[in-house]
């Protein structure tokens, strides 16, 4: 896959790349389907219940059935909604979620793009989703939706700042914004989770908030706002908001793996196991962590939520930046 | 580029103000909400005095370069810095008592925004790189935008701030657009590098882009000095802003605009030669000395519009706004009458002289306006009614400032205008000189209208108008300045001529 990138342009090459992208799309969709299943199972397991177990063997087809259900639901656009924006909303939310996947290197072989500004690309694209969410809420012209949209935007932009800042330590250490370089750098030294533990924790928290997931799921708090910004959405439009969230789970877990856990780098010299396996393992660990958190923590209060981002996470992230720089100058790294 | 080896002493004036601003910002945060923030004002004045001292130290020394040639400490910049520092110092004195009232709700912010604006102006005057210059410009602008709208509960203030920011941003965008072409032709944002490469581009058939750049830069920068075509904001903004801010805009901001205009236009465009004359080098034709014709048109329109529109104003601050538009036109005249390299140095000195005089008399006027408007609770010029009876000395001082603004002797304003007038006549721009003089006569009408209110109309009240000591001090200072410079202008003229060196604008101090 990676060598596709080195070839001169030809239509055949274009076809190959497109095929690879389509396959990646398939993988992502597959992941989403089974991440949902897996999440429900994990939560069920933590809460000592079964989770889905009816559709298909061990409930494996549960999500498929859910998706199909959404597909055959009627697509309702409320009368008062802004029709055009209402349609664009979910697409705009979903598009960047999928597009960011392109820059993540999964293994030495499986890379879709080798971009110098990988981190910036991720940060830039992922913030577009916020617009999609705001559009959805606004276009619905529903009090819950608008409130939910506003809240989630406020939350997401607040946490985006520490999220982006948490990469900075790594950038200082590697001197590159290229994700592949970062993985290579970790091969040479240690995984950045150790020197960048502050950055990692910041990322974990901010990333969770960025995903609007429990314990930071205030925007869609069922008991206050019914469903937040997508309360008016039904059918496949709703599905895409849902999809967005899980594609981001995929993207963020991948990114964390790449940035902090050494990507496809094998630990303890276990090189005989292919890199992609290691990647998937680390990736699964992080995904599991996300589900675990969801099952464990209660939802935070609004007043705690925003204050936490600005008063704690951003200063901590900035501190991390300076600390890394100082240590870098002192040649600790 | 070892910044630790930088000669920090050269940045002393700027650093003083920056540190001051930072310290006041922090102190403002630490201080309790009820604390008296006047102390910040006094501290700032002390800091400004120190900065003035540093700047005076730098006068007369050769050009120094800093930060990869993006910053230069030269006579031109230092002279302008003195104008900014003195002006802002006086604005501070004006403000300290002004903001007791609910006029400026956030006084701490006001003080440090004034300081950051000052830093912006200083950077503008001293930068030799368009990026640095642009940063200075925007620092000044954004501080001003906020200061204009600092009375956030006041709709007038809001409106003024919005109009100001919109005009300001459009203009700075136009300026940038022009700069982008210059950058494209020369590949540099350093003024001196540009000045070396631009003539080449001009002669190689890219003269269109040079013209485009010239006009866009000119139009973009015209808003800072409130000249045609971007003068429309002035009346509204001056009216809506708190009076000390108005004074700041009218004086320091405008002077900074002139600093940047002179710096950019002269440095970049003067070396461009349109037609060489090898036989007789003195007959060589320069781009800039032809382009000044457009400046002359701008100056003429500015004078005409400013002065004629001012006649119809009944609000004192709007009137002063348009008067300041008119003055921008006057000050542009020396620039517009640069027709040969011979007189450039003198022309720029004349502009500096005018700006100093303008600073003194305008700050005097605005101080009086502050006092009167506060007392009358209205900004209408009828608030000046009977001022003479209520406080004769204030009335006399105000009339003298107005006479000076009108350009009548024996005041500094007359000498300043005369200098400029001579500039125009020297290059035989009789039409420009004529417009200047005729519009000056028109200006008598509205200046003397205020005088009429003060002397010839009974006031609403005969109660004595008390003036606080600090404001008395400002007025006295301005009065003496206008009078003494009117009688002995050579004190200042010689100071400027001795310390201003045209070559400073062009000296290339680095190897490439």
């Amino acid at each position, binding site marked *: 896959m990676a060598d596709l990138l080195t070839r001169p342009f030809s239509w055949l090459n274009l076809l190959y790349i497109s095929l690879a992208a389509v396959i990646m799309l398939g993988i992502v969709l597959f992941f989403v389907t089974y991440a949902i299943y897996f999440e429900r199972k994990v939560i069920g397991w933590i809460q000592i219940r079964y989770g889905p177990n009816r559709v298909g063997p061990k409930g494996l087809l549960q999500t498929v059935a859910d998706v199909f259900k959404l597909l055959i639901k009627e697509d309702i656009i409320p009368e008062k909604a802004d029709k055009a924006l209402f349609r664009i909303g979910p697409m705009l939310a979903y598009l960047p979620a999928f597009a960011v996947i392109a820059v993540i290197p999964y293994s030495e072989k499986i890379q879709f793009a080798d971009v110098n500004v990988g981190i910036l690309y991720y940060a830039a694209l992922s913030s577009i989703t916020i617009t999609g969410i705001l559009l959805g809420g606004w276009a619905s012209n529903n009090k819950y939706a608008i409130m939910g949209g506003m809240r989630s935007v406020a939350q997401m932009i607040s946490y985006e700042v520490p999220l982006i800042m948490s990469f900075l330590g790594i950038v200082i250490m590697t001197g590159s914004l290229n994700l592949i370089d970062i993985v290579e750098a970790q091969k040479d030294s240690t995984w950045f989770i150790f020197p960048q533990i502050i950055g990692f924790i910041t990322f974990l928290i901010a990333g969770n908030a960025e995903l609007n997931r429990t314990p930071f799921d205030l925007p869609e708090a069922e008991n206050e706002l019914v469903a937040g910004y997508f309360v008016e959405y039904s059918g496949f439009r709703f599905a895409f908001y849902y999809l967005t969230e899980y594609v981001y789970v995929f993207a963020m877990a991948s990114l964390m793996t790449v940035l902090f856990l050494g990507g496809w780098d094998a630990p303890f010299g276990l090189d005989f196991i292919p890199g992609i396996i290691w990647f998937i393992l680390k990736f699964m660990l992080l995904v599991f962590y996300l589900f675990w958190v969801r099952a464990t923590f209660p939802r935070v209060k609004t007043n705690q939520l925003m204050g936490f981002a600005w008063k704690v996470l951003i200063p901590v992230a900035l501190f991390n930046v300076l600390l890394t720089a100082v240590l870098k100058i002192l040649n600790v790294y | 580029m070892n910044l630790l080896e930088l000669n920090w002493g050269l940045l002393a004036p700027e650093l003083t103000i920056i540190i001051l601003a930072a310290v006041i910002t922090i102190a403002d945060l630490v201080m309790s909400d009820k604390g008296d923030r006047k102390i910040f004002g006094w501290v700032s004045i002390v800091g400004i005095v120190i900065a003035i001292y540093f700047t005076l130290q730098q006068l007369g020394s050769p050009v120094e370069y800093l930060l990869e040639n993006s910053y230069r400490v030269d006579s031109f910049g230092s002279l302008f810095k003195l104008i900014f520092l003195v002006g802002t110092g006086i604005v501070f004195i004006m403000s300290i008592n002004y903001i007791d009232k609910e006029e400026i709700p956030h006084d701490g912010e006001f003080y440090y925004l004034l300081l950051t604006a000052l830093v912006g102006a200083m950077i503008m005057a001293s930068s030799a790189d*368009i*990026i640095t210059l*642009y*940063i200075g410009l*925007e620092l000044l602008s*954004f501080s001003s*935008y*906020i200061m204009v*709208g600092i009375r*956030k*509960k*006041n*709709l*007038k203030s*809001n*409106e*003024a*701030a*919005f*109009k100001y*920011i*919109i005009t300001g*941003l*459009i203009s*700075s*965008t*136009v300026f*940038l*657009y022009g700069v*982008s*072409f210059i*950058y*494209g*032709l*020369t*590949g*540099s*944002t350093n003024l001196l590098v540009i000045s070396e*490469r631009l003539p080449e*581009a001009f002669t190689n058939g890219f003269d269109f882009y040079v013209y485009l750049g010239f006009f866009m830069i000119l139009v973009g920068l015209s808003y800072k000095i409130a000249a045609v075509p971007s003068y429309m904001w002035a*009346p*509204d903004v001056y*009216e*809506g802003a708190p009076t000390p801010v108005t004074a700041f805009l009218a004086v320091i901001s405008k002077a900074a605009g002139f600093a940047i205009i002179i710096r950019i236009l002269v440095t970049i465009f003067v070396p461009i030669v349109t037609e060489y004359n090898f036989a007789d080098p003195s007959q060589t034709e320069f781009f800039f000395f032809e382009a000044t014709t457009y400046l002359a048109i701008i100056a003429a329109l500015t004078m005409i519009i400013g002065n004629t529109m001012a006649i119809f104003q009944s609000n004192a601050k*709007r009137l002063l706004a348009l008067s300041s538009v008119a003055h921008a036109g006057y000050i542009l005249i020396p620039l517009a009458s640069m027709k040969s390299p011979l007189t450039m140095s003198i022309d720029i000195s004349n502009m500096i002289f005018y700006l100093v005089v303008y600073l003194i008399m305008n700050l005097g006027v605005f101080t009086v306006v502050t006092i009167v408007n506060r007392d009358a609770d209205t900004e209408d010029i009828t608030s000046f009614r009977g001022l003479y009876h209520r406080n004769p000395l204030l009335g006399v001082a105000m009339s003298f400032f107005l006479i000076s603004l009108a350009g009548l002797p024996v005041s500094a304003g007359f000498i300043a205008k005369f200098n400029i007038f001579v500039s125009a006549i020297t290059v035989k721009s009789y039409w420009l000189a004529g417009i200047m003089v005729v519009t000056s006569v028109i200006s008598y009408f509205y200046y003397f209208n205020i005088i009429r209110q003060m002397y010839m109309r009974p006031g609403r009240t005969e109660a004595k108008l008390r003036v606080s000591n600090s404001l008395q001090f400002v007025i006295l200072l301005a009065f003496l300045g206008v009078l003494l410079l009117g009688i002995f202008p050579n004190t200042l003229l010689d100071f400027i001529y001795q310390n201003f060196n045209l070559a400073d604008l062009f000296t290339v101090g680095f190897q490439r």
Partner: protein
Amino acid sequence: MVPLNAYLAVGAIMFSIGMFGVLNKKSGIIVLLSIELMLNAVNINLIAFSRFGFYGNITGQIFTIFTITVAAAETAVGLAILIAIFRNKGTISITDLNIMKR
């Protein structure tokens, strides 16, 4: 490769659209957005020149970063002022900004 003129043309078009928006739109927000568009036109120019100019170098890109910052400051200050207006007046239509007589 895409020629320089194409970039300049895009820049000019964006600039003109922005200018049109500033001069013709009623909503304060749209005016701010239009200015943003103009600034981005400048950015396009700068970047294009930094790549294809006579002396193409990185300065143009650095300049762009500063321009972006200014654009951000513009948004911040402009919006803050608009909010103040909205809270005092209940509208952000710039045609209603006329309490000071012309």
